[in-house]
């Protein structure tokens, strides 16, 4: 019986041998999930698309260094996450939106009121997650947005699953505190 892991190994071997179809198959299988993960991180569809594309560009270059110990998607998620962080940390020349001679920009999103309320709450939650310390943020985003299992994250971070669960607990405590602070 061929397990998903065996299938991944076959795909990886084919890609490494220069098989373009195998690479396309990998993209087909994973790009939606990578896009969703990045979208949850950045909250913008266009940007998520660009970052997803950048993720795969980096993945092809880094393929040689992938040891196959983790799942392909876990590896891709790690690249996507780093790509997102690089984007966030990249210095931007920008100033306040309300400058006198600035171009008028409205932050309008279509939808009913409740949809907006939900979206606002989701956005608040996203911002709170983004404010977490790096180790907690990666753990939360990888688990809830990337869909990685606790064991996978523990393997990436090279710590125990118990430590990951502790991180998650700590992260939720901090998120809760941040959300309450915002309400007050």
């Amino acid at each position, binding site marked *: 019986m061929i397990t998903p892991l065996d299938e991944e190994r076959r795909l990886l071997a084919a*890609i*490494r041998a*220069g*098989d*373009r179809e195998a*690479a*396309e198959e990998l*993209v087909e299988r994973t*790009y*939606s999930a990578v*896009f*969703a993960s990045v*979208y*949850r991180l950045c*909250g*913008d*569809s*266009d*940007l998520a*698309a*660009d970052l*997803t*594309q*950048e993720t*795969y*560009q980096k993945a*092809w*270059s880094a*393929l*040689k260094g992938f040891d196959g110990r983790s799942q392909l998607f876990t590896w891709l998620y790690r690249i996507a996450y780093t790509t997102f962080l690089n*984007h966030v940390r*990249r210095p*931007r*020349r*920008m*100033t*306040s*939106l309300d*400058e*006198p*001679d*600035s*171009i*008028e*920009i*409205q*932050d*309008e*999103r279509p939808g009913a009121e409740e949809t907006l309320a*939900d979206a606002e709450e*989701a956005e608040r*939650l996203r911002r709170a*997650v983004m404010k977490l310390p790096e180790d907690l943020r990666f753990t*939360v985003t990888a688990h*809830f*947005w990337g869909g990685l299992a606790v064991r996978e994250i523990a393997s990436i971070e090279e710590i125990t699953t118990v430590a990951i669960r502790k991180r998650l607990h700590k992260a*939720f*405590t901090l*998120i*809760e505190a941040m959300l309450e602070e915002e309400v007050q």
Partner: protein
Amino acid sequence: MNSKRRAELQRKLTLNAVPRPPAGLVDRIRADIPKYLEQENERRRSSAFYLRVAASVLVAVTSVVAAMYVVNGPAHQEKSAAVAPGPFAPAQRRTSIAQDTPVAAPTETVRLEIAEETDLQLPPQLALDAAPPPPPAAVAAAPVSQARAQEIAEATPMVERQAENGVSGSVAGGVVGGTARGVVAEVARPQAVVVEREVAPAAPAVAAPVPTPVATSAPALEAPPPPPVMADAASRVGRATAERRAERSFAKEADREVFGISVDPHNFQQIRETLEAGARPAATAVDVEAIVNYFAGPPVKRPRRGVSLDVEASPAAIEAEGDHAILRFSIDTPVGGSTVVASNVRVDITFNDRVVAKHKRVGGDESLASESVLRNGMSVTGLYALELRPNLTATQRVATVRLQYKTVPAGKAETLTRHVLARDLAKSWARSTRRHRLASLGAVWGETLKGTAPGFDVARRAQELVTQDPKDARARELAAAANASSDGSR
């Protein structure tokens, strides 16, 4: 925090709605695949190639050392016999090889071959791919024919340039398609005549036919011997130097355009001279791209290695009707000589149609050419004039600039990507970097001079830049030139 609240937070985190990936994303990702995979294969191929070259070098060096040993054998043997008549057999074996092998040409001939090879710096690929050595008689009769010498002299500067750069690629006329390696092997292999056969067919394509019957083919090897080697070599060196100069001059000329963007520094000087003479330059004499690049100049700090990509956007320099913006990208290489730092360089700019209604490259057509190599000390700036759609959201992507290149000499593929979001356009033009302001103001001035844009008060804006930083020579030049031309442009 109680478990209920935690569960609620988890649910919200997990159920956060995600839109479907935009149409075409998968195609964009797919489009990147083959290039990278091919590079991977290429790297493997090149590793194998390096191994083969190393093996060839080893064999060639060993052969030459053995040949020299054999040629010097008798004298050395006598000496050895006199000094150490012990039980060492090698001296005996050497003698027998020298007697049995017809390759043992006279010492002088072999040395002559090596000297010529060293002097000429033969294209590496030619000799590496060369056939087995010719008969010893032919080697002795005609080491290098005159026509061949001319061909080599023509090929040499290009090959040298390739060797300096360490870059693979083909050279004009299709004569050489190799890389800068294996020179050691060339020096070591006394096979100049064989090389001649490889090159001969290409000669008519690149040069006028030579009237002399001397050769481009094997029978010519039996022609009378050429003039004395020293004089011949000197003339070859002279020709090679002249060729090299011509090549450098051509390269310098070519450097006035990077990615198809004119960076000619003389254009602004000519316009200034015309204005100082009280005349107005003809529209055809105004090269807006060159002016943009003159005023954009180099960055405040060049990258320490590799290539840098600086992207900046702002509202247009001079207010016009509607929402207009200017996007600048500048590509810079480290300070220093003319060493090649990147190869296979490509710039791609994609605009988001939902944000940008119209876009136009300032002073040129939309397409950007690729560059086979980029050298140190290079700076190029391109500007795009954008017309934006109304009601933008801050996080909407306006454009993405992507620079792809291979590092030299490592050959590693690099991609630099810069996204411009709508919020980046929210700042005022006056808050942009000086490079951005000078480039965009230079563009407006150039367009005004050219008559492709209405007269704007560039002089006043430039004077503001001078007031902010009186030491900025470029701003002073722009202000003075804009003042001089303002009568006609307003």
